[in-house]
């Protein structure tokens, strides 16, 4: 009988109820930024950014904040629709202008931003921090009409349909000009082609895809004489409407930095890599990163002769870095790696091989994750894990991924060797790599299935729960682990079980939104897994959450999403626009009882359209209707009548949930509000209790 009653983590029916209804689901219209103009902020300057999109909060509610990969000062300038006056109903914003100011020392490069509004947090949009000013130029499609540019500057435009854009330059003999397009690196579906032409239309320099910038072309040219030149920009297929930012000046065009990673908080010296023929620049810096590690950072290079920076991506990591030293091409020359580290090296000559050794205990998980293309290197790594006899135990690199990881569980104590080579056998000093090598690696990860139309965020009222649909991916690890959500505010409680057993594949993980959080507050949720075995030291792995596939479903054109966006889920505390209140109730077996559900508007003026009430958490034998029922708007409450079954056990407390679902007028935004109540079964056992 007790199986019917609620007990934490044991009642599947209650679990189902929680899954389906105890959350606030933004169902219909997501908050979405469709464009930001300009797509850049310049260091040391203020810029007015115009965000266009859907449901960017309610106009006039004052809740608007830029959450970004860089620090900035911000203020609201205007909103559309305009804020309501005279108590009229507020409408959802679809356009907002914000003034953003950046300090001079803000790192240049590609970052991201998202808006935090009263409706939640938008998905991210990639954004550039530049040290080139953005100028408004009307691009022309005929060379003879091209507008003369006065570099250094940058221009933002969209490709013309079945045509090309021309810009004019007056080159001076000996002058170096650098030109690059940013589009793909800003997450745009654009594959640009760049050409520098002379007055007769002959190609002086041209660029399409480049190792350091992917689909974004970039070139430099030194004029041999004073001459008029033309910049030609097009989408490779001549497709129109594709965003691009054209940078023109004298800046370096590094492909990457060496090393390509930095340990958070540790001062590191970097050298720019490539392109061939250009001098390497160096700089030394300590990077902590706004979001710690692992995360993606942008590193700018600028020499004294330059009037702007070139920038490359950099990976910020927690573990120390090991920089490869030649010779290490023979098994006897292998570098011994004693603890988890990021291996950084170069495949300097064709068919170069770098070898690393690892002493492992039986059962230890060894995980290698290569980084090349995502950080600007042209290399495609082939990883081969061998034992000391040269037997290949595992390899990675032949798959259809540019950066294929390798995971191995040691079957015996002993030394294993990692052979790193380039798949096509290529090698120059530009063929560098970073490999995240984890001994005692995380034997499992959790992929968040955010769905295609998701905001890539979760939202809930304080006191409610948010549910993450997770898929556990195990790598020969069958033990039960404890999963803990955490964020800036510390650890979060889990509603239901936090133990994830071997049998778990796809499951719902429910996180309690603390009562103390206020509407509009938010946090970045992360996941930590821990495992304790008797007689063994506890093991703990942070950041086991990964939602790259979900991210790329939502934002398919961001080829290499910043890592901090892939393991931190923004959790937003929704305002209590409506409070569902339930009258406390009790009754004995056989009694007919009534539960009254009423709605209380907490803030604002709005209508709640066609609300319906649902009940959940009752044991099946109580035969409470599952189907949602209309909520009586006129009366302002709804009543559920039910008879407590004769077999109900007196003394039990059954936790049940009522949810009211409807659409907020003007917001076109389906919402569910809910509350829970404890239903006490009175009767015999109570009396016995008292007698005792």
């Amino acid at each position, binding site marked *: 009988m007790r199986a019917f009653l609620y007990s934490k983590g044991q009642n599947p029916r209650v679990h189902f109820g929680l899954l389906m209804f105890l959350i606030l689901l933004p169902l219909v219209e997501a908050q979405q930024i469709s464009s930001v103009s300009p797509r850049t902020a310049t260091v040391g300057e203020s810029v007015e950014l115009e965000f266009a999109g859907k449901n960017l909060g309610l106009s006039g509610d004052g809740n608007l904040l830029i959450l970004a990969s860089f620090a900035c000062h911000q203020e609201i300038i205007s909103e559309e629709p305009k804020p309501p006056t005279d108590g009229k109903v507020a409408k959802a914003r679809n356009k907002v202008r914000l003034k953003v100011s950046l300090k001079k020392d803000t790192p240049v490069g590609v970052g991201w931003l998202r808006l935090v509004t009263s409706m939640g947090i938008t998905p991210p949009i990639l954004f550039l921090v530049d040290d080139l000013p953005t100028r408004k130029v009307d691009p022309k499609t005929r060379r003879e009409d091209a507008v003369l540019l006065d570099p250094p500057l940058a221009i933002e435009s969209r490709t013309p349909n079945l045509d090309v854009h021309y810009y004019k330059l007056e080159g001076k003999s000996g002058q170096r000009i650098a030109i690059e397009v940013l589009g793909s690196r800003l997450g745009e579906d654009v*594959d640009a082609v760049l050409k520098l032409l002379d007055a*007769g*239309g002959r*190609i002086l320099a*041209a660029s*399409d*895809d480049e190792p350091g910038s992917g689909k974004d072309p970039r070139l430099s040219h030194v004029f041999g004489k004073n001459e008029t030149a033309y910049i030609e920009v097009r989408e*490779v297929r001549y497709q129109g409407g594709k965003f691009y930012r054209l940078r023109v000046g004298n800046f370096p065009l590094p492909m990457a930095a060496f090393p390509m990673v930095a340990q958070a908080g540790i001062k590191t010296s970097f050298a720019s890599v490539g392109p061939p023929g250009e001098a390497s620049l160096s700089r030394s810096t300590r990077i902590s990163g706004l979001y710690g590690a692992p995360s993606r950072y942008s590193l700018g290079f600028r020499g004294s002769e330059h009037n702007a920076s070139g920038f490359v991506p950099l990976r910020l990591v927690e573990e120390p870095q090991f920089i490869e030293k030649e010779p290490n091409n023979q098994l006897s020359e292998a570098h011994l790696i004693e603890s988890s580290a990021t291996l950084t090296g170069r495949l300097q000559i064709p068919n170069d091989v770098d070898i690393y050794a690892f002493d492992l205990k039986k059962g230890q998980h060894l995980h290698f994750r290569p980084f090349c293309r995502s950080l600007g290197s042209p290399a495609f790594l082939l990883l081969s894990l061998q034992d000391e006899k040269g037997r290949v135990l595992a390899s990675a690199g032949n798959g259809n*991924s540019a950066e294929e990881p390798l995971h191995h569980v040691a079957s015996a104590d002993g030394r294993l060797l990692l052979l790193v080579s380039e798949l096509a056998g290529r090698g120059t000093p530009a063929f560098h790599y970073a490999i995240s090598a984890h001994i005692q690696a995380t034997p499992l990860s959790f992929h968040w299935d955010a769905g295609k139309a998701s905001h890539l965020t979760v939202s809930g009222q304080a006191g409610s729960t948010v549910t993450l649909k997770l898929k556990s991916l195990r790598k020969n690890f069958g033990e039960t682990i404890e999963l803990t959500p955490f964020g800036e505010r510390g650890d979060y409680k889990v509603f239901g079980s936090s133990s994830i057993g071997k049998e778990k594949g796809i499951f719902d993980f429910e996180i309690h939104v603390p009562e103390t959080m206020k509407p509009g507050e938010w946090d970045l949720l992360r996941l930590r897994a821990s495992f304790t075995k008797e007689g063994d030291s506890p093991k703990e792995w942070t950041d086991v959450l990964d939602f790259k596939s979900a991210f790329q479903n939502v934002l398919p054109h961001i080829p290499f999403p910043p890592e901090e966006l892939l393991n931190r889920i923004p959790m937003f505390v929704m305002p209590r626009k409506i409070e569902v209140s339930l009258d406390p109730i009790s009754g004995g077996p056989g009694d007919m009882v009534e539960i009254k559900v009423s709605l209380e508007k907490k803030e604002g003026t709005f209508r709640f359209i066609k609300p319906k009430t649902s009940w959940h958490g009752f044991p099946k034998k109580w035969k409470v209707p599952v189907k949602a029922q209309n909520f009586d708007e006129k009366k302002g409450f709804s009543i559920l009548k039910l008879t407590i079954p004769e077999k109900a056990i007196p003394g039990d407390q059954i936790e049940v949930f009522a949810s009211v679902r409807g659409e907020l007028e003007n917001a076109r935004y389906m919402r569910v509000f809910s509350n829970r109540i404890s239903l006490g079964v009175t009767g015999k056992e109570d009396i016995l209790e008292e007698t005792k």
Partner: protein
Amino acid sequence: MKIIYPVFSLVSLGLTCTGKPRISFNHEVLPILSKQGCSQGSCHGSPHGKGHFRLSLRAFDPSLDSHTIFREELGRRINPIEPSKSLLLLKPTMAIAHEGGERLKVDSFAYNLIREWIREGCPTPEKEATCIKLEILPGGSKLLKWPEFTLQLSARATFSDGSSRDVTRLAVFTTSDENVAVVNPAGKVTGNHRGQVAILVRYLEQVQSIHITFSRKPEGFTWKAPSPVNYIDEKVLAKLRLLHYAPSPLISDSTFVRRIHLDLTGLLPKTAVVQTFLADEAKDKRSQLIDSLLDSPDYAKYWARKWGDLLRLSRKQIGEGAVYKFADWLEQSIASNQSYDEFARDLLTAKGSSLLNPEANFIRTTINAEDAMESTSQLFLGSRIQCAKCHNHPFERWTQDNYYGLTAFFARTKTKKLGKSEETFVWNAKEGEVRHPVTGKHLPPWVPDTGTFEFPPDKDRRQVFAEWLTKPGNPFFAKVEVNRIWASLMGIGIVEPFDDFRDTNPPSNEPLLEALAKDFVKSGFNRRDLIRKIVNSNAYQTSGESNEFNRDDTRFFSFRQPRRLEAEQLVDALGQVTGKPMKFHGVPVTVKAVHLPAPDLAQRNRSMIGDIEFLKVFGQPERQTVCSCERAGDAGLGQALQLFNGKLFNSMLTAGDSLFRKSLSAKKPLSAIVENLHLSSLSRFPNEEEKAIALAYLEKAKDKGKALEDLCWAILNRNEFLFNH
């Protein structure tokens, strides 16, 4: 027959054990069957044979043939007791009905040889010396001067046991051009006409050829030729003088300006350019124009398109995005005048991402190692080696071993698709060999002229091949490219078809080909330099009209062979004259047909299908093969209909805003409009007669616009417009 077979077997066994047979199955019977045509592809040598009798193609597989001849069908084809009653003899002598007709005469040498072999019990020794060398006597190239137009050839074979013998009666003799000379089965060559032929002699797997030039001075012939401009003229004139072909005179400025534009940029010259050029009195104006065109973006785009044809650059082959990228790469290669050896190396050794390295799309267009080798061979060695995949090449020295030896260079080439994009990664695996389909053995990499050679086992095989290919001394590489360029400019190759180099298809002027190749190598494989030299020569600037002493010359460049405009050239030319250029899907409206990255970009738009038909009718290739033959240059009824009243042509003529209608609206004099039509289409002013006829017709017409349409239609249907002459 059931009784005969065991008897025959015993006889056969007895005879083979008693001593060396007098007749050799391998060295005599099979060659003679081949010589009679029994084992050719259209007869019993076809894969399924004929009349349930199958021989290996040209006696390529003796063991199969021996089995077929006297063991198959319970030995019914052989009658060892009465050899002349053998089916093997009754059929080809037509004693019994034979679909292939009479192939043997009773008591002929071949008949007697086969009969004696049967009489001996059909001996087929398992081990027999192999033929290792074939010589044609007299050797070397021959020049026969009229009236001495006959030459008796003999063939001598050398075997692996050191023996040698005359095999003239067993060898097959064929001629490359029956119009010039014929050769009889006994090896006697008889010239019919002045010119040049190759006589191919084939015995077993050995093939040799001899080149014979027939020279005859026509009555009244006197040698008269302009002074040579460069070595090209010297070589061309030397050959013409030898053959007694009188070169045609040089072309006028108006013909030159049209020809050079079409050949270097694919486009007609603009009216203003023509007028300026014709008015220019500078002596070196032709070379100046050549230099400016070679430096123009249109040159790079047009010659990139030519390579696009050969490299199978199409959306279907490599995907839409890759088409644009590869086309851009080709254009930049031509624009920057990338040396040809580097260009070839880039294509052949390309590795990595197909997006970052568009040249890697060359490998993407190939299906497997064999296809990669066949494409490479045709493109860079000028050899169509496909036949040798299944058997030794019937007309060439290529063997099946050679085919798979060459393929071994591509055996380790791998590709993988990256993610959902069009990107492909190309690399070389550390292992991978080619297996001979008959012997099952792994074949080491092999190259012509050198054979197998040593190189480090871990070295990139494609790189090894590319290094061999692009070495200055390579006998094929430079010649193939200079011949291709020559053919593009002159309308016909020194070797023609220009990608079909073989002994039986000799160059029409070997010293010229050698000199061009030598100069090309010396210049660092500089294609632009070569083109400049050719188009500056008198040979290039010779008239397209023949004279009484060169009318029958089709190969020696005594006059320019007129060519129909390519499909794309024609579309652009029509558009330029009418002012209504054809628009293509997927590219800006300013992109010309001759600059299209791929022929199948436009096919996405069904509404433009009529226009695509025009291009197809005029021979635009689909780019499914690397063969130059895919671009059709012939004429046909469909083309005539398109030019008569085709949808595209008609829409250009009848457009309300065509150039001539605009001129009419601007009240330009009719004489100026007529002049302009001639300049824009024919690059010349109309002569007095043309002008008078045109003006008379226009002035009489009530609707001047319609009349101009008619005039334009008439001009654009003239051969002078439709041909590059």
